[in-house]
């Protein structure tokens, strides 16, 4: 374990600050994709980081730290998803019912509209997946973890990860086919293909 992690375990505020600053955004990215709502993702991120620091004694220093803290975050998000009532929350939704884009830093309305549309699509697809599949997709596509590291986070074997990735992509593809969105590309997609 690095020296500053040992200090964080003992309650040194500077070391705790460094740990939180280093890992808060990756943890938040995972929580946001899994929960789909900014405020809840922020709460889950804080909860996960608190648990991680308070349980540093349980961390195996031989293994990388990021998958360990993401595992805590993933379990936190899965618990929250399971505790959710089966009613669609209006938090984070705009007047038209679409998921509200929370970045607030898009340079122009067209770009913001595009991002919102994309966010709606992605969130709908992710919501259709079981929590563990959602974790695997998020870690593979947005956290840039290897299959081994994803296995460290989820406790799955590499073959199980590949299988879940494939099944998740298939489920999302069926959503696209089912909603007849195939062929109706957004401007971003057209630029990507070009």
């Amino acid at each position, binding site marked *: 374990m690095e020296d500053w992690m040992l200090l964080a375990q003992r309650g040194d505020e500077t070391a705790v600050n460094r740990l939180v600053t280093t890992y*808060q955004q990756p943890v938040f990215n995972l929580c946001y994709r899994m929960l789909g709502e900014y405020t809840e993702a922020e709460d889950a991120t*804080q909860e996960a980081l608190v648990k991680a620091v308070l349980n540093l004694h349980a961390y195996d220093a031989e293994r990388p730290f990021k998958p360990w803290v993401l595992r805590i975050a993933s379990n936190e998000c899965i618990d929250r998803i399971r505790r959710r009532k089966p009613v669609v929350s209006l938090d984070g939704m705009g007047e038209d019912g679409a998921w509200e884009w929370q970045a607030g*830093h898009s340079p122009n309305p067209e770009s913001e509209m595009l991002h919102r549309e994309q966010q709606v699509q*992605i969130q709908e697809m992710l919501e259709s997946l079981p929590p563990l599949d959602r974790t695997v997709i998020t870690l593979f*596509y*947005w956290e840039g973890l290897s299959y081994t590291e994803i296995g460290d986070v989820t406790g799955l074997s590499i073959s199980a990860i590949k299988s879940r990735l494939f099944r998740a992509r298939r489920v999302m593809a069926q959503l696209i086919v089912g909603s007849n969105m195939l062929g109706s590309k957004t401007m971003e*997609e057209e630029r*990507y293909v070009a």
Partner: protein
Amino acid sequence: MLRDPIADVHSDAWWMRVCEGTLSPQEEAHWQAHLAQCEACRQEWAAMAQVDMLLRTAAPPPMLALDFTVQTVERITHKQKLRQMLRFVVGMVVLGLVAWIGWAYFGAALSGAVRALTVMISGRQILFAALIRTLVGLAVTVKSLLPLLLGIASTTLLFLMPNGILASFALAWLTKRKRAAGAAA
């Protein structure tokens, strides 16, 4: 070599290999030929490609609020302090329980020793009180003996009070060390 090409191209195992890009050139050719004929596979393959593209080009999530780090660190340090306090309280309770259980089981044997010690201390105190009264009486009667009597009273205090015993041992040890240092010099 494909045993049953038509069944294979619709199986999960085949599709996983297509997604991972692990088909041989022969299998790839077979796959392309199949796509040209099978509308369902063509549609699904296009949808999966669209999913992959969407996920890879998704905009990143928003950034966290500026005060998030400060709030989180405050919460962590607060919880750590609470844990330390809880450990201390639990430790004291355990110690108290152990002492209580120890006294309950071994109290009879201990109380005898405590009683003897109490008698020793109070006995010495009674003796000391009597000695001091005698010395004060003598000092009042024969005033020239006052310094001598004060010296005797101080020496008696040192030797007869329990903490005086410790002080006496300390004094004896210091004197011994001083003599040894003097002899060495």
